[in-house]
């Protein structure tokens, strides 16, 4: 009996730590036309879900997950994963599909195309030149 009580008390303490340690930093929005919530903070890691431009994303801070400088640890619906910081915006962006909805709908993109479109942004090496 004592053993069981000890087990439950430890379990409840752990549960409490899990719930209190996570802090929502803020709600951000997806910038590219499509993007992925990744399983790990690697560009080619598996996708948990595909989200489209302007989709709200909760950025979470927790001591249990180290996201790395390029990545944000996020929650989208029931999924918790990683999104590249450069693809998140504080303000709701003007998305292509929002500006030209009827044109965009007419393309009838299938699931594979949505997936690949999100993947495309994981593989781009982007840059811009500046005056020094």
């Amino acid at each position, binding site marked *: 009996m004592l053993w069981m009580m000890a087990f439950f008390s430890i379990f409840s303490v752990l549960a409490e730590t899990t719930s209190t340690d996570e802090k929502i930093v803020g709600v951000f929005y997806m910038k590219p*036309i499509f993007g992925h919530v990744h399983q790990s903070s690697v560009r*080619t890691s598996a996708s948990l879900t595909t989200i489209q431009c302007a989709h709200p994303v909760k950025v979470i801070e927790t001591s249990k997950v180290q996201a790395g400088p390029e990545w944000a640890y996020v929650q989208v619906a029931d999924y918790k994963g990683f999104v590249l910081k450069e693809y998140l915006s504080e303000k709701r962006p003007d998305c292509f599909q929002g500006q030209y909805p*009827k044109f965009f709908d*007419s393309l009838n993109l299938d699931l594979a195309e949505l997936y*690949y*479109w999100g993947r*495309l942004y994981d593989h781009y*090496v982007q*840059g*811009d030149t500046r005056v020094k």
Partner: protein
Amino acid sequence: MITTYKGIPVLSKLMMMTLLLSATAHAQDSEKLQEEKELELVNFTHIKKVLQQDGLSQEAKQKVKQVKILKKEQKVMEGSRFFYPPESELWGFVSEYWLVKNAQILGWDFNKPDYGLETSFKSMMEKLGFYQKKFKILLLNTPTVVRTSLPGSDHEIILLLSVPFIRSLDLTKLEISLLLLEDFLRMEAGYFKKQVSTDKMKKLAGANFETTKIDPSMVQELLANYDKQVNITGYTFQQQFEITKKMDAFLKSSPELWNTYFKMLSKIDRFIKSNAQYKDYVKLYPSPEMQVKWLSPDEKVL
């Protein structure tokens, strides 16, 4: 104490007067037809002055005006949903759509090491004085498409490059950057857009299709032209000559870069002549051999 007037209590007198007045009014009312009474209810003219004094009719007019404006705005908003993207946005969108449609053929969704291309290409561009230029590099895991550049949105350029090709040639970061620069200049020269664009695209880009039916063939035609340009047409001798001369002019100020470019072209020339897998390269980019000749100093006849 009860207040009296001429011996009659004031309260009783008031009650009597009220009764008398209501009886008179009732008598007048009963003289009117039912229809007349109904008309009075419908006809508001006798209360118009009261309404005007209250400013209600003015407010009603303003409300009608507001509704008109809102309806007009709603119509404009609804109409704005039926636009084709303008050319500046359409190019980038179609380029990405083409990349998505050809994802399996181009094989860009693969694990690769970080070649540090962003830094090396950027620093070379800046060294040569190309400022405020945006680029995206996409590495391909196929020998089928060796290299090309596509127009991106907002003056951006998408550069594609085959990893099997750069590995087979064992190209350095600098050499890869020079290849990318060539493709960058091709895109800036406008050859791709000129060869791929259609009359339909020029006509429909930025147009509204609220009252007409959307034409899906515009995008389909563009995608077909992308295929043709990347896999079959490529660039002409004249276009290649112009680009080679541009490279020559830009690299002249940096002998190290010029020499690397010259050696790289010779390397590509030897490689594609000996490798059947890349036999189509010369048809698309004619030709490294000629490029070397164009760059070589004229031989003086003594």
